[in-house]
């Protein structure tokens, strides 16, 4: 048998193997670092898909539920259920946050029989017009926040909340 490994050969193979392994362990993160922007998905992952189809939207706000997966709050990892009131104004899709600007309750569209076509807060009777503008004389001091909206593949995607731009 001619393929007998000599003591010297064995030594150099072993050293090359371990050396190579160590070098790659050092180089891999560097390479990943360098090409990271390429690996990242292009559209800022902050938009969350909702089950709401754009075609089904009307001028009347509808409630859209969506879930933010794997939100980390300190050590507590959870899925956060969220809602938005979504309607169409002409061709633009508008999504408003349901969080009352007074003390943070959840508002409902047409939640009060005596004030239809307004958002109503059941806690202290705060009211908002369809575009989120607070009705003067009720507790809230500002308009409802708006969600960033994106339409993709016929579905509504919602992003961060921003101050109301319609009022």
């Amino acid at each position, binding site marked *: 048998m001619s393929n007998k490994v000599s003591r010297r050969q064995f030594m150099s193979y072993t050293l090359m193997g371990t050396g190579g392994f160590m070098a790659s362990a050092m180089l891999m993160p560097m390479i990943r670092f360098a090409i990271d922007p390429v690996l990242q998905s292009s559209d800022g992952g902050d938009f969350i898909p909702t089950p709401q189809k754009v075609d089904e939207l009307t001028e009347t706000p509808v409630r859209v*539920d969506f879930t933010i997966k794997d939100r980390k709050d300190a050590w507590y990892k959870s*899925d956060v*259920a969220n809602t938005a009131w979504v309607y169409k104004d002409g061709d633009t899709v508008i999504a408003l946050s349901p969080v009352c600007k007074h003390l943070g309750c959840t508002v409902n569209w047409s939640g009060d029989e005596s004030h239809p076509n307004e958002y109503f807060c059941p806690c202290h009777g705060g009211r908002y017009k369809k575009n989120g503008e607070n009705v003067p004389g009720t507790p809230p001091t500002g308009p409802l926040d708006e969600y960033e909206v994106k339409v993709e593949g016929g579905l509504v995607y919602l992003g961060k909340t921003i101050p109301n731009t319609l009022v």
Partner: protein
Amino acid sequence: MNWTTKDMDTYLQQKEYIDTLIVPLLKVETKPELLKNSSSSSEFLMYLTTFLETQFKGRMMLMPPFIYTQSTNLSTFSETLTVDLADMPFKHIFFITTDAQWLSVEIKGQVIWLPSIPLESMDEKLRQTIIEDQLRQVLPRFTEVWST
């Protein structure tokens, strides 16, 4: 409002608006054969009260749950609670529980008893619907005291 420093600061400034106290009463069973049921009802109660809090954040203060085991004497427990909770200036106190025993215990405030529903086998959407349905059932109890 939750029982956190941040929400507590808001409460202390807005006392006149936040006039309702929600107290979850949670029974923890320690008998091995009841552990599964006990955890399931604890989960249900936590989901429900958390949801309640997000809906009525600006009017309610949600206390951390009061936990007791099966041999706790509920009448002394409720006496202590009644005395101690009276230190806070809340106009309305609601106790929420899945333990039917509370219906026969005298306590200052209203007891809302709900049968526990096993949520663990449900997907998220169904769970949300169930919790909302449950809330819709107890909602009149709140609006009734708020409107007087």
